[in-house]
């Protein structure tokens, strides 16, 4: 009898631990400012860096996210170089708990998500690309060793991402 209760308690604690660790993992969204994003780009080294600007309210963004996830799962590396996908949410910071995290859970996103809390857009949009009017989705494709810095203001599919990678990194 005692052992059964003990086992049940152990099981219960185990389940709590799992749910806690899962929720911690799911809520792991850093709220950053533009300087931190700039640093990430500057220090990307030999990593092939894909940065996707999106928001939960942006329908075309939400549509292309599964393709980005699939790409990221399929290409952890390319030609022995690490491939890194970073989702940069442009949702307002006060929507982190109510919109961004529930969305990530629903879509079971595995890639890193940060929330860029910098609504003075005119100060940083031109630093990403001089002709960016502010339409999303927008995606950066960066590989510093070859000075590759490409910017797309459009929806991208898995095939387009794959083609981009294979055509640029050969």
């Amino acid at each position: 009898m005692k052992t059964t209760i003990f086992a049940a308690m152990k099981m219960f604690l185990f389940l709590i631990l799992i749910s806690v660790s899962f929720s911690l993992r799911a809520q792991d969204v850093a709220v950053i400012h533009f300087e931190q994003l700039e640093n990430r780009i500057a220090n990307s080294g030999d990593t092939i860096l894909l940065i996707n600007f999106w928001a939960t309210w942006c329908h075309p963004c939400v549509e292309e996210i599964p393709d980005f996830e699939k790409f990221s799962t399929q290409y952890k590396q390319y030609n022995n170089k690490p491939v890194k996908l970073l989702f940069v949410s442009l949702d307002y910071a006060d929507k982190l708990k109510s919109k961004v995290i529930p969305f990530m859970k629903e879509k079971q996103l595995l890639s890193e998500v940060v929330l860029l809390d910098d609504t003075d857009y005119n100060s940083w949009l031109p630093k990403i690309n001089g002709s960016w009017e502010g339409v999303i989705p927008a995606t950066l494709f960066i590989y510093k060793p070859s000075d590759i810095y490409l910017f797309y203001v459009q929806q991208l599919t898995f095939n387009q991402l794959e083609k981009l990678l294979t055509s640029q990194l050969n």
Partner: protein
Amino acid sequence: MTNRFFLLVFAISILSFTFPVVPAYEVGDLVENFTLKNVDGKMTSLYDFTNEEGIILVFTCNTCPVSQAYEQRIIDLHKKYRKKGFPVIAINPNDVTIRPGDSYDAMVDRAIDKDYSFHYLHDEDQEIAMRFGAAKTPHVYLLQNVNDEFKIAYIGSIDDNSNDETAVTRYYLEDAIAALQAGNTPDPAKTVAIGCSIKWRVN
């Protein structure tokens, strides 16, 4: 020779169909007149407003969260500036098939619900948004009346914080109006900001 000529004519005619013949407006350009249906059911022309000092023309819509975040500010801007000769004219360019919430009827409902006192026009063919080079909502064009023609004085955002009006530090649009009133050129004359892409009709 004739073959080549026809090929050339063919190529040119294809190109002129593929690319817009007229480039989008830039700061300093004069704006052609246009006529669109207002939420009151009447056709409204830009050149109905030649008695004004200028126009705060804003491409916006019902459905975009950024437009919604700016909605009260647009209402307030009209209340403040129509007395000073700069009324707001709002234009909704979104394709109804992609965004049913931006239909003419939905616009009428919203204008009534939120008590819009400015014109809210339906750019059903999306030609005006295309002509202005509008990319997103909200997207502001400040027009200055120069000898009863309208010249673009500023393009961009209303201010530097779409989410929180109380945290605004730069009032780009109001500063641009103040510059015009003082006889100066707005600086900056152009700003960029995150917004919702205009929902262009897919042919």
